[in-house]
């Protein structure tokens, strides 16, 4: 499927900001099932400084600076990507989770060595009591790793409430587990924490999801949103995406921006402003099919 993504972020400052410095993970990366056909960033006002690089995880990162006083900053990323269906891996046919853990620990291949870095706690996903116990329910001994992970996702979907007021950008996973509520970022973090507690490799994926309006109503432009899910390493099959917010194995309608150990590695926009007083933020995302 081919999509055009338009993501606009606007900062409005109560007083003029003299200087703003930002890092963006705003440009989609190519993946096994995603081809990036076009991508373009635009800024208003124009930054005096712009730098592009590939980060440690292979994501496309931009750093830019606006160095004159401004009371408003708008960033727009426009991209065209083509996505493929997922490979329809048979969950029951994947190796037992204990075996996966052993292979990661041994990391005998380059691929396993690379996956191994996603086994450890990361700045925003700390180890916490209770997480492993919660995870183990889905992983009786010998459970195929993907079957267990899909069960974990199903349980989280059933037991957790989607609640935008329950958390902030840095809510710890232990609190999400205790409160049984949060948003996609929290669910992704918690699921990753669960899988890592079992010695499995899981990474955080930032991206978009195409939303379809109820039948008969027109799709509203800009009504889509940033989204986040996770990816599990399965030896032999590679990285398999899982979306606990929607209880689905992502396919064509999940569009990937970047991945890392957690949200902190790939926050779409992060920055520092000098001055500027209070700021407000408006985000509009539009994901549209292109024929």
């Amino acid at each position, binding site marked *: 499927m081919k999509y055009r993504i338009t993501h606009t*972020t606007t*900062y409005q400052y109560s007083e003029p900001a*003299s*200087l703003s*410095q930002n*890092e963006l993970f705003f440009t989609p990366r190519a993946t096994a099932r995603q081809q990036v056909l076009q991508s373009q960033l635009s800024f208003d006002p124009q930054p*005096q*400084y712009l*730098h592009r*690089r590939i*980060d*440690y*995880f292979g994501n496309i990162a931009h*750093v830019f*600076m606006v*160095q004159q006083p401004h009371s408003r900053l708008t960033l727009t990323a426009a991209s065209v990507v083509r996505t493929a269906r997922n490979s329809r891996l048979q969950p029951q046919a994947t190796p037992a989770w204990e075996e996966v853990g052993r292979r990661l620990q041994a*990391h005998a291949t*380059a691929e396993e*060595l690379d996956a*191994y*870095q996603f086994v*450890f*706690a990361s*700045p925003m996903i700390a180890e916490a009591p209770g997480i492993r116990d919660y995870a183990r329910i889905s992983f009786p001994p010998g459970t195929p790793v993907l079957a267990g992970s899909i069960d974990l996702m199903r349980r989280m979907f059933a037991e957790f409430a*989607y609640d*935008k007021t329950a*958390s*902030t*950008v840095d809510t710890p996973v232990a609190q999400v587990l205790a409160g049984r509520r949060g*948003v*996609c*970022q929290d669910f992704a973090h918690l699921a990753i924490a669960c899988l890592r507690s079992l010695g499995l490799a899981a990474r955080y994926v*930032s991206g*978009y*999801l195409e*939303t379809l309006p109820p039948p008969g109503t027109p799709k509203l432009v800009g009504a889509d*949103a*940033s*989204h*986040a*899910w996770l990816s599990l390493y399965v030896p032999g099959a590679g990285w398999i995406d899982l*979306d606990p*917010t*929607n209880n689905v194995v992502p396919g064509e309608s999940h569009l990937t921006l970047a991945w890392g150990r957690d*949200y*902190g*590695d790939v*926050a*779409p*926009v*992060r*920055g*520092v*402003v*000098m*001055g500027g007083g209070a*700021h407000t*933020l408006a*985000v509009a*995302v539009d994901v549209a099919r292109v024929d």
Partner: protein
Amino acid sequence: MDHQPKPSGPAAAFAGSGLFAGLTCPQGAYCEAFAEDGQPREQWRAIVAAMDRATPERLRQRQERVKRMRHEDGATYNPFDAPDGRGTPWALEMVPLPLTAAEWSELERGLLQRARLLEQVLADVYGPQLLLKNGRMPAELIYANPRFLHACHGIQPNGGRFLSLYAADCYRGEDGRFRVLREYGGHPVGLGYALENRIVISRLLPELYHRTQIRRLAPFFQTLHTSLVQRSSLRREDPNIVLLSSGPDSPIYFEQALLSRYLGYPLVEGQDLTVRNGRLFLRKLAGLEPVDTIFRHIDDPHSDPFALRRGDVVGVAGLIQVAREQNIDIVNPIGAGFIDTPVLPVFLAELCDHLLGEPLMLASHPAWWCGEEQGRVQALARLETVRWQPALDRAHRLAADPHRALDEAAFAVMAQETVQPSLTPVWTQEGVHLRPTLLRLFVCATEEGFAVLPGGLAMTAHDVDTLLAAVPERLLSKDIWVLSDEPVEPFSMLGTLHSVGEFRRSSDLPSRVADHLLWLGRYLERAEGQVRLLRSVFRRLSGEARPEDIPELAFLLDLVRAIGMIPPLPENGEVPQDELAGQLTEALYRQDRPASVAVVLKQVQEAARNVRDRLSRDSWRVINRLEDFGDNPAADPLDLLDNTLFTLSAFSGLAMEGMTRGLGWRFMDMGRRIERALHEIDLIRYGLPQVCRAQHNALEALLEVSDSIMTYRARYRTAFQLAPVLDLLLLDESNPKSLAFQLDQLAAHVEELPRPGERRYASAEERMTLEMLTAIRLLDLTGLACNSGGPENDDPLNRFLETMATRLLAFAQQVGAHYLTRVAATPHFSLRLGDGA
């Protein structure tokens, strides 16, 4: 790897007669000073003899001098709150630790090799990561290590130098060989203290020092400086080097200030620096000045709150981006703290074989990493004797039970063999004791390779555990003397680096420093005005006369009320005597009232602390006396106020005298002038109606609190009359307390402030001061007298003064906005990731 103490024969006691008599080296430890036959080792003979000759009393005096010299140099956090030396990092103890040329050359070669090795390790870890990919380094060392900074991966440091300053804690084991216990690359500390110790000890023991051939420290600093200049001049001739400090709150701020002075690099804080177009700049009064090199004195994680995702404000937002662009030389490159990883030394022997193709000369202290089966077995075999330590993150707390810790995360655990550092004699009040000792040694990059500081910081503690805990405030330090077989050439840094740095510094200064100096001036003046006013009140209250018989008392109290130091009069106009006494006590001591003397004095100290490196040693000592204020509420308020006024005057005198008439001095003096002018306006505005309500003596009191009574008497020799008093306080430009004098001074200062471009037009500040000065010069006081209807609220003089106060405040704001603007940086994050459902 295996380290078993060799059995050794019973050591003999030292046979000498004096101080060292009877000292015995216990078994299982190497004794630095004495050989096994109980005789002093060759390199110790001169020191032992010199100390044996001195009487205990003389030694006590010497140690006192050491402490005092360190205090005077400002090496203590606060010289006056820690009289026993506690709270002082690495308090200096006088017995030096000598090392022979042969011992040193072994250590030196070992350290040079380790530095080369560690630099290659860093180059790989932050580059191709072949050690990881080829299994030469455990993956956990990178993947589970907070000391590995993802944001710094791929950065090519200036000149390819991944490690330009390195420190190692070494000890000498029972077998007489040196080993490395810990290494530092993120923020090696102690270099300044090593330098300070040498300065103090060479002054304390001049004869011994000059008779012995001791290698000098200065050439090392010259080398450090030369290599910095050489690397930076790849980009620019005459590079700008700054020393990035963690600020005056740091317990080792002294070291940063000392190195700044010694090397001639301006001492700056994170907020002095800013990033533009991928380059780094220093904010100065005249504008932004490019920076080429940072001598960094803050640790890795705090270096860049932007790239490293931290909320703190110590570092420089965007610094890592500047490094990515290769527009800066940082000592050390951010991320070099990877070599601080506690378990890394375990792998260095193998890495040395692999990377350098040579055996590791200076061994690491025996330890085992529990992330590997083999290491775990070795560690558990020594369960009772080893020290269980975090392997990756020094701040990580392991479970008390090693089995439990291994269960939780074996890769995070290491086991260290028991450490038996050699013993050195340490002089204390009770005599000489043998104490375990670590040597912190320093290595810096040179043009081609590395150089070792021939000396360092020897650290001793009462016991091994305290020594290893490495809290600087709980350790004593010694000067390390590296003996030379050849005569030592005298060498000094002075004249080579010093003068250049000082010269450059005087021409301009960071805005932050100017801001603090301006406020220091304002707070000082504010404190002086308040103290003077309250002193006039207490002087009258402490006399024999009853309060109601002192006509000017009500006048003075009204002034105290007018400036908000005590509550306003109630409706009935009566305050009971005891309530008034309570109010006045609060005006002195209350911590939660913005206008109390205690609070303003605190502000003075705070502002002074922020510019401590700009103040002379003497003025810093004086400012510390202000701490006593409020310690003793039972003290006579009049004495206390007298003393405080004296201290404030002494400080002002010293600070102003000791400063060159540069921009720093101008900003401090502008602060004083602004505040004094505002205070004088307040006194006259609020005082004048009272004066005219026929309270005699009030005019005299007004002159008294304006500190102009002597001038009045000298000039007029008449009774106090309104017109001459006002003339003296407002218009007389030769009276240093008059309003006109303050404005005249301000006008002189703003003419000298830096401005961009050519001076074709007057600056806004110049126009404002000129306006105020002209207004006061044109003020006509003729005909002003109380009987002419009297100055009331709407009279021209009152309106004039009110306008003047408004203009002064606008002027202060203009100066702030133009030169001193400090805007807060607020991190912003992208909005919550939204609804994908």
